[in-house]
């Protein structure tokens, strides 16, 4: 009879454990408030991206179309993937001296891993990470970006 007793208690425990599991899923079934789905393209307006989110590298320009990049290539050296290529030119200062300055800030988004090392390395805080994340394009060449706006120049006083 001990065998029978064990047999029945086994079945009882098995069934009760199964019912407990069903209670969990069943309780979610009747509580639609628990649904956590975000309907992505629809909720774009009220989506909150944290300000530290690393989406892509951008260069900040002020209202006078001036940036703070001196073309020192610290970011280029810091980058592990050769994402950044800085093309420099020589400006002539009002005193007539030749001075190295930024010509184009080439940024390969397709190689970038958003590691933030370039932003950390920048001595003048000229670049920062933007919060964009929708990077998909139809052609890879569109991911090659020039970060300094056309006609922009170095902000006065930035060394």
């Amino acid at each position, binding site marked *: 009879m001990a065998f029978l007793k064990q047999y029945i208690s086994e079945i009882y425990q098995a069934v009760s454990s199964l019912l407990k599991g069903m209670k969990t899923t069943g309780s979610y079934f009747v509580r639609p408030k628990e649904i956590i*789905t975000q309907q992505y393209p629809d909720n774009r307006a009220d989506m909150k991206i944290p300000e530290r989110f690393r989406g892509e590298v951008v260069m900040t320009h002020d209202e006078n179309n001036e940036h703070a990049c001196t073309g020192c290539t610290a970011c280029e050296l810091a980058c592990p993937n050769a994402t950044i290529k800085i093309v420099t030119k020589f400006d002539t200062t009002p005193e007539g001296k030749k001075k190295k300055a930024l010509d184009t800030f080439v940024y390969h988004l397709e190689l970038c891993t958003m590691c933030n090392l370039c932003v950390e390395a920048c001595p003048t805080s000229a670049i920062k990470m933007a919060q964009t994340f929708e990077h998909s394009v139809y052609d890879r060449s569109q991911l090659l970006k020039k970060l300094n706006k056309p006609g922009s120049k170095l902000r006065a006083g930035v060394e």
Partner: protein
Amino acid sequence: MFSLENITDSSQKWLYATFNSTIALVLQCVIVMLLVISLFAVLGLVLVLMERKVAARMQIRLGPNRVGPKGMLQTAADTLKLMMKEGLTPDGADKFLFNLAPFVVMIAGMLIMAPIAFAKGFQIWDINIGVLYVSAVSSVSVIGILMAGWASNNKYSLLGAMRSGAQIVSYELSAGFSIVSIVVLAGSLQMSDIIASQQTGWWLFRGHIPAIIAFVIFIIAVTAETNRAPFDLAEAESELTAGFHTEYSGMKFALFFLAEYINIFIVCAIGATLFLGGWMPLHVGHWKGFNHVMDYIPSSLWFLGKTFFLIFLIMWFRWTFPRLRVDQLLSLEWKYLLPISMFNLLLITLIAIMGWHF
């Protein structure tokens, strides 16, 4: 009162009055054919959508909600997609059997429809050995599955088909014993008689605890017979990718998929007929008013309500439990369900003979 029985009766009368008997019979056949085909299509659409919605709610998701209002047309879109897919046949496959298998599964599913009473007087063929017929025909689908697995020339398919074969035949036994216990109580194999015997109450309630045990065993066994989780070893995707239908694509896959859902509907319909009184409304003792209100609900709604409740139960299982291992699956049947159902049948017999049921 709205009733399907009146519609079928009057349409039949009209047919035989208007045409001579041969043409009337042919027309009747065509109408039945169209009805079952559309039933198949509608059931497929509704059940797949229901499964996805139920799963989503249990998994704290929204589920399909893009195609049509609240995602209602999602399965229609899926069907269209499957139609647009190319149906591949592997080079090494046994082409004849490979293409035959989905037909076998579909025919098996369709044939079981015959004795099911969808509503009062709404039955294709009230065969006098209805219950036996159902359990006989339902095992035909295993041939289709074995055929599909064997013909695919794929190792996963073969293993899946073998598992499925062993599983379906094993669980048919305990399902059979549960069905027999109701036959003992009702004293007839005919579906309409079984339903009629539940005039005063459903067997689930009238048969005391043994009837409830029989019901539980029936539900477990049919879950296994339809290859549903937690018994979905034939298509256990984490082990055998997709089991017996690994190589099927396009419309042939859709037919297997549809047949799975049709089978669920059928076994739940039989469960509802045997244990929950089919289209019989719920009557409680001497509450005259209550019983009267219940009578006003059309019998087809009663039937569908009960069936869909059972379907929901089976879906609930699927989205809660992990899958059994193949040896555990068989030991569950042979060491637990079969001995219990045999013993249970003896108890039911005792109850039937002594007239202890309500």
